[in-house]
């Protein structure tokens, strides 16, 4: 059933004749994943929400560019990641604007809240510290490494799929993921020594 629906959406998108109702189905199907990736990249819930909307709007406006060479999910993630890159660039620019006094806009990054601890408080504390160490390590990564790490371990995409999303060679994705995991491991070791 899942595949049939996927194919129907894909066919509709490839034929470039998509009704809003059909596109609503695409939104419902992929919005959580798009939002999650954006949230991991931007670390801000409001910005992730806003860019998720923008991502689907762009996708709808550029339906004629979808050739069906990749999956709908890959196509949407590519749009989302490009939006996040542009957003980060603008954010850097707005930092300088604020710094130079051209703008009074405040950055309201919402702190990431971790889930409540489990039944065993001590074990939960250790786990929580480990998770925090991974979050810190992920924050330390370059934007591209962070994206690759999130797509691989949170979204569970194959290396070849990540390569398509980012327009990179699979070997390059693998090398960057290797470095990312190395950073995470280093962070975890540091945390164990404390």
């Amino acid at each position, binding site marked *: 059933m899942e595949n049939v629906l996927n194919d129907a959406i894909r066919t509709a998108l490839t034929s470039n004749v998509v009704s*809003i109702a059909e596109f*609503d189905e695409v939104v419902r199907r992929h919005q959580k994943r798009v939002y999650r990736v954006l949230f991991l990249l931007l670390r801000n819930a409001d910005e992730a929400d806003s860019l998720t909307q923008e991502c689907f709007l762009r996708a709808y406006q550029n339906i004629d560019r979808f050739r069906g060479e990749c999956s709908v999910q890959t196509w949407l993630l590519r749009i989302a990641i490009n939006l996040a890159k542009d957003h980060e660039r603008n954010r850097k620019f707005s930092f300088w604007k604020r710094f130079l006094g051209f703008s009074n806009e405040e950055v309201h990054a919402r702190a990431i809240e971790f889930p409540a601890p489990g039944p065993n408080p001590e074990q939960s504390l250790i786990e929580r510290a480990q998770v925090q160490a991974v979050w810190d390590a992920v924050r330390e990564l370059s934007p591209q490494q962070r994206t690759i790490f999130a797509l691989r371990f949170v979204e569970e995409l194959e290396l070849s799929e990540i390569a398509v999303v980012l327009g990179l060679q699979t070997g390059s994705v693998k090398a960057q993921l290797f470095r990312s995991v190395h950073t995470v491991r280093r962070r975890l070791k540091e945390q164990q020594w404390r």
Partner: protein
Amino acid sequence: MAIDKDPHDDRVLESLVGRSISAEDHLLACEPCRSERNLLAASIRAFSDSARETSDHPTHFWTRQAAQIHSRISSTRSSGMGFRYRMTSALAALAIAALLLLQRAPVPRPEPQAVTGSASDHELLLEVERALQRDTPAALEPVALLVEDISRTTSESAPSFSKEQSHHAN
């Protein structure tokens, strides 16, 4: 970023990154590496779960987001159609105005080119005839007039001189 060159470390990372067969073989034989990989994998899994939970929202959040996307698409669509409609109407109005202007514009009448041509030919012939009848070329006309004037003066003064001469002779 310097990566440790310990082959055991590399095996642990490879097993997580690319599901390498050689790394898996190594892990089967090496207990410390296996436990290290398991610990690292567990931490990454815990991070993924935390990331999913942190980014998750109640149903009404997704419903509201989908509704907002829907309304934004609808508004761009209608504004796009409105723009297309306005453009079409403007172009049609422009075409009609151009047509009306063309119809009302005075029709340019062909000038009597042939008549002018023959008239100028006739003038040219007359000019040639006049030039032929002239004794001197047009450029030498002032000189010719001067010579004529001098000769006239000379002829007028010549009889009185001869009279005077004859008078003295007498």
